[in-house]
């Protein structure tokens, strides 16, 4: 029959229409409706049949651990409140950066003039950063990592486009909170290397 295809097609739309309300009702009864963590997780799963959308900014998509946005510098909190950066200013991140947005000034000893493994200045031009994650991937000291915070809008472009060392610094605890699996893996590798070093030292 002519027009049957259209009718069948409209049936699909109609099914979607009713499914939306049915799904909504079921979610209401199960208690995982809007604005709940469970509700967001349900709407991100492959079981969802009705509404797919997330009510941003009231709701936010759950970010996977590997999600990357802009880089930050990891520091260790010292007991006196100081910051000990893991960065040794080796320059690998600056060399590997595809758009060349990382600028590092190495510290030099004022007396001897020899380099000290710590950055004097560290800048990332966020306007240019392409969020590729190569810096974090190739950093041998786990000193630069990719952040999860993607809400960076400001009223004036030059307000926050070039981030310096202070603006980039985030504590290890923050890193552990956004990437627990990676953090645990790196910590165990670190501990292993440390004990191997000690064992080597113990041997005369």
């Amino acid at each position: 029959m002519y027009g049957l295809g259209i009718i069948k097609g409209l049936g699909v739309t109609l099914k979607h229409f009713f499914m939306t309300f049915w799904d909504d009702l079921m979610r209401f009864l199960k208690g995982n409706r809007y604005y709940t963590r469970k509700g967001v997780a349900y709407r991100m799963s492959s079981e969802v049949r009705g509404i797919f959308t997330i009510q941003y900014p009231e709701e936010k998509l759950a970010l996977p651990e590997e999600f990357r946005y802009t880089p930050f510098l990891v520091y260790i909190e010292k007991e006196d409140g100081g910051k000990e950066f893991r960065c040794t200013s080796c320059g690998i991140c600056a060399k590997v950066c595809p758009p060349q947005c990382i600028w590092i000034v190495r510290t030099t000893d004022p007396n001897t003039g020899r380099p000290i493994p710590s950055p004097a200045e560290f800048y990332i031009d966020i306007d240019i950063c392409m969020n590729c994650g190569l810096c974090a991937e190739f950093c041998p000291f786990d000193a630069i990592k990719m952040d999860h915070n993607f809400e960076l809008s400001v009223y004036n472009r030059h307000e926050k486009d070039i981030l310096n060392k202070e603006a980039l610094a985030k504590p290890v605890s923050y890193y552990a909170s956004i990437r627990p699996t990676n953090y645990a893996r790196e910590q165990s590798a670190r501990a292993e290397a440390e004990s191997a070093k000690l064992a080597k030292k113990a041997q005369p």
Partner: protein
Amino acid sequence: MSDQILTPEKTPLEARFQGAVLRDERKGYQGFIIKAENLVEIATYIRDEMGYDFLSSVTGVDYLPEGKMEVVYHVYKTTGGSLFNFKVQTLRNNPVVPSLVPVWPGANFQEREAWDLLGIHFEGHPDLRRILMWEGFEGHPLRKDWREAYFEDEGKPYKSRWPEGHVKRVEDANPLNDNVDYPAGFDPEKWTPVGETALYAGFGQLDNLEDETGLEVDNIVINLGPQHPSTHGVFRMVARLEGETVMDLKPVMGYLHRNHEKIGERNTFLQNMPYTDRLDYFCSMTSNWGYALAVEKLMGIKVPERAEYIRVMMAELTRINNHVANIGFLLNDLGAYFTPILYCFEERELILDIFEAVAGSRMMCNYFRFGGVVRDLPEGILEKIRQLVYERFPRKIDELDTYLTNNEIIRHRTEGVGVLTPQQAIANSAVGPLLRASGVPYDIRRADPYGIYDRLDFDVAVRYHGDVFDRYIIRLDEIRQSIRILQQVVKEIPDGPIQEGKPQYQARVPAGESYGRVEGPKGELGYYIISNGKPNPWRYHVRAPSFINLTALTDMCKGNKIADAVCILGSIDIVLGEVDR
């Protein structure tokens, strides 16, 4: 693996054209160097007698130290098989090469591109105008001695970044008034675009024509785009119309041109990887793969088994992602505004969530490395993919099928519209679904397998009418085949390492040339790379499927109504990031 042609003492080609065909004996190179004056004759022989009917890529290389320009041709057989490439050399200060458009019309845009970016003049080309840069642009940007506005050094990494990296903004380094290089005597205020005149002149006489009944008619020229919702980006079609019928049509592009290849030649090999994401931002995984293949060929490294499976998994998910999105957009072009596409985007969303969890980003994946992939699949992802390919996708694709395929309006609008015959498709170097919908079962995954595709069980989808409807339906077929591949892959994926050797940020690439190509969702995506042993590639060329597929657009649109030109363009499936590069 190797594309080396097994050559006895003398191939028939060398025997037939003695003295005009020389073997390319540079280290790491292959193929033949042909004398320019015999080029057309020999190319015809290669096409007709040797059976290499499909011209994959044409590009130029600037050998500045030797004072030479070289044009490289990559040809294949549509019946399958490996590469045959040949080159023509010419002097750098006056590069002239005969055009191969009469032999392979698919060379049309590619030769224009080589003229535009490298300044190689193709004698006998029917329409040798700039294609990506604007008329009035000074110089040819891919020449090795051409420098961009923010030029800092010949190659990255720049020395100013470390260890004395005192930051400065790019715009401060080069204030705006210093950026533009005009030709001598050029006044932007008084300039009228020469190219536009040439473009319109190409349509010939428009007034006082006679139609078949002897009635006097005028033709009109209209512009669709560059700002037009139906052109999927900044793309422009200039059509000559008689009434509503398209008599001739010329695509105009380059509005999104950013000289990707020049950036690629400044970058180190690894640094190019995230840039390939930005070519076809719908399918960054396959863009990554093509580039990784080309460089792996040069480096001569093998990829571990698990990484190969992950690669196939990601590439096939990308294909589903691209095809559902394309079907949705095609329906938008047909006037079914945004209901079908949002149904399609649900599936796309689930795939992008997987990419985000695996690669860290939804679209700019940057997931492949030379000799493997960045990281192993995070926990739970395999289970998620399994659920999708066994439960959700088959059901949803069937639903899409019932929803759209037999809809009478869609069939009326698409059947018999924009027909591309197999001969036209091959001649115009059409690739991907466009070629296969015209009845040519050419799929690189089968014709010239890479990765582990030779071990996987799937069919090459093919349809025979070559119209918009077949291009729609073939995408559904391909999604079904991709689901089939994914079902095998998630079942068989082995454990093991995902990266050959230690990850290195400085890839050591031996000197030579290589051409790596993959069957992307939009068709054959090829990368032609020349290394001279330094950290940066000497030449980095992208054979972009959606760019070259546009060559066939004119043939498909002629004789159709102007309203159909929109859906014909939609059925090619272009992404402007890749067209304009």
